[in-house]
């Protein structure tokens, strides 16, 4: 299954920018196939639905990072549990300025 989401915030800038769309592949099959460097969308109990990049995958969970110095990452969020992963980004639709 697939789901469309709109990106808010600049933590993943410059690759993923405010207003971009992403299509994520959902379901346990996709979360099992995650690799380092994948962009994933997951649920966090305090911050809601977040998009981050997989830094490394361990037995205790998935460590994620943003792209900015001030980005929230697993040093604050902790490792993401697989059951909280909503999907892996499979298509990125960038917002060009002329599309604004």
């Amino acid at each position, binding site marked *: 299954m697939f*789901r*469309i*989401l*709109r*990106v*808010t*915030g*600049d*933590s*993943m*800038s*410059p690759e*993923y*920018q*405010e207003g*971009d*769309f*992403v299509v994520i592949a959902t379901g346990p099959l996709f979360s099992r196939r995650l690799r380092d460097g994948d962009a994933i*969308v997951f649920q966090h109990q305090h*911050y*809601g*639905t*977040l*998009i*981050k990049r997989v830094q490394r995958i361990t037995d205790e969970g998935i460590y994620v990072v*943003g*792209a*900015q*110095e*001030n*980005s*929230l990452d697993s040093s*604050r969020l902790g490792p993401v549990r697989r059951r909280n992963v909503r999907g892996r980004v499979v298509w990125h*639709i*960038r*917002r*060009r*300025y002329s*599309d604004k």
Partner: protein
Amino acid sequence: MIHQLFSTLDKKYHFGRAQAHCDVPCGIYDPSTAQIAALTVVRMMDLMAGLESEGVAAHNSMARYIAVKEEHAEKAKHEIRVIWGDYFKKDKHPNVDELVHKIMQLGSKARQTADRETGVALVEAINEFAAIFWETKGVATKKAKAPYAPALEMVYPDL
């Protein structure tokens, strides 16, 4: 075009949001501050060169021009360092490193001297940096003369 299609669908169906969240507000980067600071450096150099009178008043003016030149050369360097360090990623923009190093050196030389050519070179190098920055944002740029002295050609986002 695809983005426009998704935007239209989003207005109708309200897609979910995926937050790229930061600890503190971030992502507000704009090279225009550095560009204006570099222009100010050239402006101060021009004022210094054009100071003809003598006496205490002239010394006072010269001291002020030099102080402002020092301040804005350093400000330009600072602003570029922040964008370079916080925004640009080495693996994606490897050529920026060399340009930033050049800007740092020109900024220092602009402080050390009153050489207008150095000031203009600083403006040009920061314009080049601005063009690269806006390109990464997908924003087109245009060149136009600054609408105030020293009226050098600048790179502006074509909004």
